[in-house]
């Protein structure tokens, strides 16, 4: 079996007496889409914070590409190749779509402590940014201020920004949250296209999307991973049904 790209090793985080993540261990293998699902309050958000470095776990380790990144800040993790998108869309509203992506490109290519040349005229930055925009189908919206894009377009833009950081792993935090049926369809198609090129850890509420996209699924309930397996295994697991799917299928 291949060495996992991301390994969570017994992550624990307590808030007062409440164990929000209670010994979470999980592997993401190179090339796979690994989905994390779980009912509200299962600890998904805290888990994401621990993976991205917003919250430090009380115990346990986050190992990324063979390197212990548990104490790394968010920017440092991103530079190591761990890109993320946000549950609530996070773009620079006043920048054009192109400038949003170019910011990510410049973070990756050379120093950002450059003071003389206008960044908007750097062709290498703009060309790479355009490629990322094209990858998510936003090439013709490059000049539009990000704040003026539709919700679905903003989600796609956020993906383009994440891609522009040249990630080894994409952590997608509910990429379909707030999207209408049509937008969801388009975003799922987009994620399906990205699937072949990237390793993805997907945290998502939309079961249909998860089952359509994921190679493996981990189920998080009350801060613990109660099951990990293929989509078929998870669907047929009695334990998962009892803890989670039952709610939806009842």
């Amino acid at each position, binding site marked *: 079996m291949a060495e996992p790209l991301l390994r969570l090793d017994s992550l624990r985080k307590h808030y007062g007496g409440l164990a929000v993540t209670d010994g979470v261990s999980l592997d993401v293998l190179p090339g796979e889409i690994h989905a994390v699902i779980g009912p509200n309050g299962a600890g998904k958000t805290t888990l994401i914070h621990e993976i991205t470095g917003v919250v430090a776990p009380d115990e346990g380790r986050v190992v990324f590409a063979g390197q212990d990144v548990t104490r790394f800040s968010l920017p440092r993790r991103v530079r190591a190749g761990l890109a993320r998108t946000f549950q609530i869309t*996070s*773009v620079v509203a006043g920048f054009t779509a192109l400038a949003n992506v170019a910011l*990510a490109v*410049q973070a990756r290519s050379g120093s950002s*402590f450059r*003071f003389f040349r206008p*960044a908007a005229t750097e062709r290498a930055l703009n060309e790479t940014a355009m490629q990322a925009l094209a990858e998510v189908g936003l090439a013709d919206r490059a000049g539009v201020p990000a704040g003026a894009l539709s919700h679905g377009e903003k989600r796609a833009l956020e993906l383009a920004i994440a891609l522009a950081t040249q990630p080894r792993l994409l952590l997608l935090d509910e990429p379909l949250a707030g999207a209408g049926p049509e937008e969801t369809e388009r975003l799922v198609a987009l994620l399906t296209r990205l699937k072949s090129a990237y390793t993805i850890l997907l945290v998502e509420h939309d079961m249909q999307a998860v089952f359509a996209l994921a190679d493996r699924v981990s189920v998080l309930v009350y801060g613990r991973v109660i099951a990990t397996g293929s989509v078929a295994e998870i669907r047929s697991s009695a334990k998962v049904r009892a803890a989670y799917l039952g709610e939806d299928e009842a």
Partner: protein
Amino acid sequence: MLREAWLPLVVLVALGVAPLLGFGGSYETTLMARAMILGMAAVSLSFLVGGAGLVSLGHAASVGVGAYAVAILDAHGVTEATLVLPAAIGAAALFSLLTGAIAIRTSGVHFIMITLAFGQMAFFTASSLAAYGGDDGYTLYSRTELLGTRLLENRLAFHYICLGLLAASWGGCAMLLASRFGRVLRAARENPQRVEAVGLAPYPFRLLGYMLAGAMGGLAGVLLANATEFVSPATLSWQRSGELLFMVILGGAGRLWGAILGALAFVLLETWLAQQMLHWKLVFGPLLVLAVIFLRGGLSGLVARHHG
């Protein structure tokens, strides 16, 4: 957009030809020099406020540090610009670096209050410098000399030096904001989380921006000390910081050159009103309030709308 780029040039050209069009007297040039120097300080503050989103209420402190550097060196017989300028700018940059290192860890109201606090510390430090006049301030023996010449004593030369440095400050700040460095600052103003998520920590960018603005404030301080040949703690008072912030807002915080307009308008209005009546501040204050309420985007926004 292209036309808008000409507007600040019109202002600078107007300042350039004013002495040749009958405004070359001592009174007028003194007034314009004051406006241009405060304009420089305001432009560097606008770089912080409108560019980096760092609303400092202590910017006068860096101006004051630059001015006091002139006074202190003057008291020790050093008046050569090639020594005074680096010392003054360096001192202001260092002051901003040290205070910024702490202040930039905070944000929003906390940042405003902590910059105010550092400004007041500088104010009281200046007040206690008995050797350099303390509360009463310090009168320079002479203006700063440039390579041994008394160029700065010449009214017109001083006017054009102020104008040149004002233009350079504006151009320098505009260049910084357009650069990669400035792009990070502007992005972090709107959405620091986004900047972190592309792999950049905003802190070092903000700190460097804060230091550069402080250095420019220090340069303005050198000119201010020379313009009045006098330095006092009032130079670093929080009221002065407030006035600078006001110039930025009056001119429009979204445009760097707005700060130049803001400073010009502020100084001219203040001077004119003071000639008209005794209690001019009673009119000045409400006028400023009205300007903030009704001039969205400031004076520069107003001008840009009419020409755009």
